[in-house]
């Protein structure tokens, strides 16, 4: 009973937050709705006995990724361009909604009529009496050690890429502006 109540509440939070992300006009509201969805998913993780992932979800997603989104939104100024008005690609909005509904119907149909296949693994079985973090660590640092190390390489590449993208080079990269022009105020010149 309690599990169902938790599930329904978290599901409502998730879907409400997701709808907020998609529908909100202001990107800041989208980011805050995303936090709601991420918390809802974290609650569901707890109810699925994945306590470590729930904590990481809140810390990494809600704490770091969304804050970075908000930081970029604030840095760039809340986007003035309302993307609801101009529609240079007629029918795209309707097409997107139709595609989304079709995708939802298809996926839910698969869930409803499909069966879950797959064998329980030999070396990663969940033990009820061992804490979640300990089990996860044991699997991560034995079976998945190589993937874990490769992940660190990925993170280094991401850091280097972000720094080189964000570095401001005065000589190159500026589109068409004259020296001394502030490129934010410059009217858009498109080829």
């Amino acid at each position, binding site marked *: *009973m309690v599990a*169902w109540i938790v*599930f329904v509440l978290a599901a409502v939070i998730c*879907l409400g937050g*997701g*709808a907020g*992300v*998609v529908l909100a006009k202001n*990107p800041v509201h989208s980011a805050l709705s*995303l936090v709601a*969805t991420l918390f809802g998913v974290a609650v*569901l*993780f707890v109810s699925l*006995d*994945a306590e470590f*992932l729930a904590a*990481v979800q809140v810390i*990494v*997603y809600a704490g770091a*990724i969304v804050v970075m*989104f908000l930081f*970029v939104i604030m840095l*760039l100024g809340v*986007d003035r*361009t309302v*993307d609801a008005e*101009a529609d240079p690609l007629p029918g*795209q909005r309707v097409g997107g*909604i139709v*595609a*989304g*509904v079709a*995708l*939802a119907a298809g*996926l839910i149909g*698969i869930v409803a009529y499909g069966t*879950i296949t*797959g*064998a*329980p*693994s030999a070396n*990663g*079985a*969940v033990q009820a009496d061992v804490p979640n973090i300990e*089990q*996860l660590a044991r*699997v991560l640092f034995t079976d998945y050690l190589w993937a874990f190390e490769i*992940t660190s390489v*990925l*993170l280094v590449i*991401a*850091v280097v*890429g972000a720094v080189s*993208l964000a570095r*401001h080079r005065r000589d190159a990269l500026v*589109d068409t502006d004259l020296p001394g022009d502030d*490129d*934010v105020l*410059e009217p*858009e010149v498109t080829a």
Partner: protein
Amino acid sequence: MLAIAPPGPGPYLALSAALFALGAAGLLVRRNALVMFMCVELMLNAVNLSFVTLARELDDLGGQIAVFFVLVVAAAEVVVGLGIIVAIFRRRQGATADDLSVLKG
């Protein structure tokens, strides 16, 4: 109070499917690159939810490990993606998908 069995994998997977479709529809409909990114995060979270559900269902911690790696990759992806958006914003006025159509060459 009635003793009702806790929700099985079905409701979790259905919720995950709905979230994924919501994110996909948002990605197709919205034009703001930042909001499109958030929709991608929504889809990643939906997949994470089904990973954890199936990890419990199949009694296999590999699903939770997969979520761990998805989290790391999502963080890296957001860092690089937002870096690109900031770099574009520095050169151009807007960062909606329409403004970026000049990239088609």
